[in-house]
């Protein structure tokens, strides 16, 4: 099972990352980047690193996305010109 979990997480993380880069709408980009973080959490748990997974969950997904969303709000404009 471990191999399958890791393989599928990698496939989804790569697809999401590619979509994140090419997505023109910026708020969608930030939400998609949370998806990258979530898959990374799954991978860290699979690699027996619960501490890193918890840190990635609270910092990588939580606070970073909040900071980026607030930055987007202050920068104004949801689309790339």
């Amino acid at each position, binding site marked *: 099972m471990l191999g399958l979990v890791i393989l599928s997480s990698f496939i989804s993380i790569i697809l999401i990352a590619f979509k994140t880069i090419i997505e023109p709408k910026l708020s969608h980009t930030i939400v998609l980047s949370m998806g990258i973080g979530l898959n990374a959490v799954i991978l860290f748990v699979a690699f027996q690193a619960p501490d890193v997974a918890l840190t990635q969950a609270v*910092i990588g997904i939580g*606070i970073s996305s*909040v900071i980026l969303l607030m930055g987007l709000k202050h920068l104004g404009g949801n689309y790339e010109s």
Partner: protein
Amino acid sequence: MSLKRTIPMTTVSGFGVSAVFILTILNILMQNMPSNIYRAGDELLKLNATDGVANSVTTVVVYFRGFDTLGEIAVLFIASLGIGLMLTNNNLNNISQENSNFMLQIGAKLLSPVIFIFGLYIMIYGHLSVGGGFQGGVIIASGILLLLISSNGFHISHKFVEIFETLAGVSYVVIGLIGLIILDSFLGNFLPYDISKMGLLLSGGIIPIIYIIVGIKVGSEMSVIVDNMLKRNIDD
């Protein structure tokens, strides 16, 4: 050469060069897979058995590589200082001026105590199970964020948070210096640590104390960062 012909050529050659580059790096990495050599971490795991701390990641973060953690706290401190410097005294529009919706207000009231208790648990039990000061501090800061965006009346006083921040930072360095004076090594574990108490809350000497200090420091820094970004109060 006209522009129409140059652009596809540069794109194609760029892709070609980067493909060769990527394949070379992949080739090097695939031919040199790390073997299961005996690493410094295995030695530390052995040492950890004499330290009385159940979570060996905590021991490594706080004690064996505690100097890195001090530097990391300094990075966070400087970043928070810089954000305060950048985002003060400007007339950015307040993000949540209007009343937030009813569900968010009620949900925040119900959830925030749970989040705070969870954060405190993660912080205090960092040396026994998964988690520790960083994670707990950030969880508490996210609880404060929830309160900040849900209710209009709530605001945190930077002066009040600064007290915690200062005390935590100063006591971290002072504990390190006490170790230097008593044991001749900075951040030395000068409190008694008993192996038979492994798994209890009071075990591991200075390790849980430092991790709680780190938690307080990280929690207050992160709250200030989030608050500065939200621009709810400009009292700095």
